């Protein structure tokens, strides 16, 4: 009886842990990673935006840190989250249009533009709020340049 109970517990533990295991090839996991990547960039932008909008006082050190994080994120080789077979047509949670996968070179070009804008912002964010605003607008343009082409429109 004791043995049986132990076997059952071990079995339960195994099944339980199996559901937490990461499958790096699972399209849903890749989409989750992609969304996490986007979210981390949004989280880096949040303190910068609050300062640009006058909702938070301008703080040069904080602005520099946040913009530095954004530049680091934008500098990643993001090809790992842009795996074929993870577009909105095949994967439930995805908003990525098939166009995002059709031409990897063009996508990499767009990412390079984001990287350049983010690095520019990181070097400007510590000077003053006007430079921060200009840099934000350029980063925003790079974000939406990609979203225009590659993201499925959301319903209201």
């Amino acid at each position, binding site marked *: 009886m004791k043995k049986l109970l132990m076997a059952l517990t071990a079995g339960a533990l195994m099944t339980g842990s199996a559901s937490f295991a990461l499958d790096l090839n699972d399209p849903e996991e890749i989409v989750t990673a992609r969304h996490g990547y986007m979210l981390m960039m949004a989280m880096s932008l949040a303190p910068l935006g609050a300062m640009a909008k006058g909702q938070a006082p301008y703080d040069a050190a904080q602005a520099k840190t946040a913009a530095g994080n954004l530049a680091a994120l934008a500098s990643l080789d993001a090809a790992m989250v842009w795996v074929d077979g993870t577009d909105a047509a095949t994967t439930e949670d995805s908003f990525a249009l098939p166009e995002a996968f059709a031409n990897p070179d063009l996508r990499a070009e767009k990412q390079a533009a984001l990287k350049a804008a983010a690095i520019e912002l990181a070097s400007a964010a510590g000077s003053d709020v006007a430079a921060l605003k200009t840099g934000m607008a350029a980063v925003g343009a790079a974000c*939406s340049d990609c979203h225009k082409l590659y993201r499925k429109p959301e319903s209201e």
Partner: protein
Amino acid sequence: MRRLIRLFLVLAPIGAILFWLITRPSPLPADALAGLVADPAHGEQVFWAGGCASCHMAKGATGDQMLSLGGGQRFASPFGTFIAPNISNDPDQGIGRWSTQDLANAMLRGVSPKGAHYYPIFPYASYAKATPQDVVDLRAYLAGLPAVATPSAAHEVGFPFNIRRSLGIWKYLYFNTDWVVTGDLTPEQTRGRYLVESLGHCAECHTPRDALGGWDRTRWLGGAAIPGMPKGRFPNITPGKLDWSEADIAEYLSSGFTPNYDSAGGHMALVVTNFAHLAAEDRAAVAAYLKKVPPVTP
């Protein structure tokens, strides 16, 4: 029966005359622009506020390519598919030979240089409220843009909508240059009203339409279906739904960032690109106006 025929014989010419009168294109008086001097630099501001490039550039154009207005983008609608014409400075395929009066008739009256009605997919229902001075400035700016030699394609529109004269009925029913939001407005809100209701032509997408494509002015900017799309809507941007602060709205129109630092997508991303060219005061004015629009309950 004979009485019926007689009645028809009497009524038919009256109907024909009424149709003729109602559907007759009505261009501007010849002296409408008299005394106005063009400022091409200000014309560039009008160009971005009016969003000309978004529809008339090649699909997906960025940077300086946005200034090549050769047309060709396709727009689905319940009435057929419209194809943006070439409005580049090419004398043969574009509008290089147009006079300032021609552009004013197009934008303020929806009438072509040959005196035909334009389809309201060209947002003259909004542009009609623009000042003649802005049109004069815009003409001068457009004259400095590149010529593109691509011919304009014909719209793919079926009967009866392919009869341009019948658009006179549409204009009779819906063409209305009264401001929608009235009452006590600050100078900032008044500037915002001009940008939203006229040049920015925001209502073209964000206000719902009836079966004939006229606006439901009681639900101004209250959100609308997207033609050709079974799902998704142009959002309600009245205070009934949009709870962003004025600073949030102004930032969105500058960088495209939402308050959650997501960014604008679809056609709105193009609007943001345009509005980023305007002065910060103009973006703030749009935000101030939007707070003044009567809330539409979702």
